[in-house]
């Protein structure tokens, strides 16, 4: 019992102490990001790691630090730089990162499924206007400090994770112009409908209601579908034929001597 108590105490002690926010790590983080992305505009190339002084990375383009003379990165604003490549998972080393803006670039590939492990403390994530594909990671629901999540104009498919109800601090949310489908989590219903527009089958508030159960309706929908398109042509043809037979053939019967026997006198 004493051993268990010690273990519990040790566990509590360790869990209450803050994680180590290493500062040398942030330099490594930026170097890796610089190396992992194609940079036709040369902005990342301007990051010069030659003379390492206190806070030298704080002067890099796109880098904002917690304190001006300490190499601890608060946010990275790398929008509109013509960057190419996959999502830079090297950002994992920027352990104090709270803001990430990669918008308006040429990123492609998936958003990492374990993104909340890579950057757990993000308050603002903007990946809009890129070519990210695959599904929205469920894992994002663990990033509970998110205030703004902008995924507009990518090629993301699948559903909006229902666990997004856990994102209680969200004041900005946009997934317009993707390939998303399925129900919109109820916690997001107060966002404008335009923030969900341009997808493949998103339903639920603020958009139109979702059908009660999609599987049962499908066969009926198909038959009604047939009734709507090809059946209407058949109906029209039938009507014309019936009209012709009803009015032309009796004339034949009446006027033709051979068929006269078959005519029933009313």
């Amino acid at each position, binding site marked *: 019992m004493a051993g268990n108590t010690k273990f519990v105490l040790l566990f509590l002690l360790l869990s209450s102490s803050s994680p180590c926010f290493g500062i040398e790590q942030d330099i490594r983080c930026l170097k890796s990001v610089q190396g992992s992305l194609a940079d036709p505009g040369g902005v990342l190339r301007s990051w010069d790691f030659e003379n390492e002084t206190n806070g030298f990375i704080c002067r890099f383009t796109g880098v904002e630090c917690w*304190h001006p003379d300490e190499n601890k990165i608060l946010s990275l604003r790398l929008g509109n730089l013509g960057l190419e490549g996959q999502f830079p998972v090297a950002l994992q080393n920027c352990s104090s990162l709270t803001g990430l803006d990669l918008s308006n670039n040429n990123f492609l590939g998936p958003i990492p499924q374990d993104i909340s492990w890579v950057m757990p403390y993000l308050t603002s994530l903007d990946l809009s206007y890129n070519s990210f594909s695959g599904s929205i990671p469920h894992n994002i629901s663990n990033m509970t400090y998110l205030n703004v999540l902008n995924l507009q104009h990518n090629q993301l498919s699948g559903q909006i994770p229902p666990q997004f109800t856990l994102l*209680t601090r969200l004041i900005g949310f946009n997934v317009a112009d993707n390939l998303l489908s399925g129900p919109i989590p109820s916690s997001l219903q107060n966002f404008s409908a335009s923030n969900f527009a341009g997808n493949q089958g998103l339903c639920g508030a603020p958009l139109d209601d979702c059908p009660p159960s999609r599987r049962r309706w499908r066969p009926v929908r198909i038959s009604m579908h047939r009734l709507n398109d090809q059946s209407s042509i058949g109906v029209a043809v039938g009507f014309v034929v019936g009209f012709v037979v009803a009015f032309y053939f009796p004339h034949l019967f009446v006027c033709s001597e051979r068929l006269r026997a078959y005519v029933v006198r009313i």
Partner: protein
Amino acid sequence: GFGSGLRAEEIEADGRRAKSCAPNLRLCRKKAWPLRGVECAAAAAAVGSRAAAMGAPPWAIWALLLLHQAARVLANTEGDALHSLRTNLNDPNNVLQSWDPTLVNPCTWFHVTCNNDNSVIRVDLGNAALFGTLVPQLGQLKNLQYLELYSNNITGTIPSELGNLTNLISLDLYLNNFTGPIPDSLGNLLKLRFLRLNNNSLSGTIPKSLTAITALQVLDLSNNKLSGEVPSTGSFSLFTPISFGNNPALCGPGTSKPCPGAPPFSPPPYNPPTPEQSP
């Protein structure tokens, strides 16, 4: 500008002296050289004569003289306030050597920046090896925007008078030895964007009044001895455990401890990914 560059000979030649020169002399700094009294008179005379030359009515001349003197008095108040600070600080590196209290205003002092009206807007004393305590008179720097006192060995409490600095954009007291509470009055600093008090020995709770500062972008209260609940409303919805780390007695969202008496807060703390989620 007025009051500078007028020498004794010019005053004799000026002839006319403003009638209210004697009271103006009282407004001048007591510690000033004798010549400063003459400067005041000369300035008053210069203002009065220029106004008269432009055909201004007498009441306008007195108003101008009064305003002129008032402006000079305000500048002196700010110099006095900073001089009080200097008196309270030990300065082994002599960074405050240029802080000459006999000057008209502190705007020529190193590490002090003024605006076009000769009012102090910046005090930059980061990394200056200063010891000692702050003074309440700092609250008199009405136009102060940046108060940079980080990385020193300053002790004592944060004066609540800092809450009067309603134009403050940045308050950096981090990496010092401040003790005592974070004053509630800091909630009055509605233009504050940067509040960095980390790495001190501050105690007590985090004032809820800070959540009303909507301009707040960067908050760092880490590495202190703060206690109680971490606010998460208002501007504090932007702040993460990084802002509050290493304050063992803090509880609530943003820490690993729920506050006593409260239900377990939601959302649950972060858990490492399960094997199927990792790539």
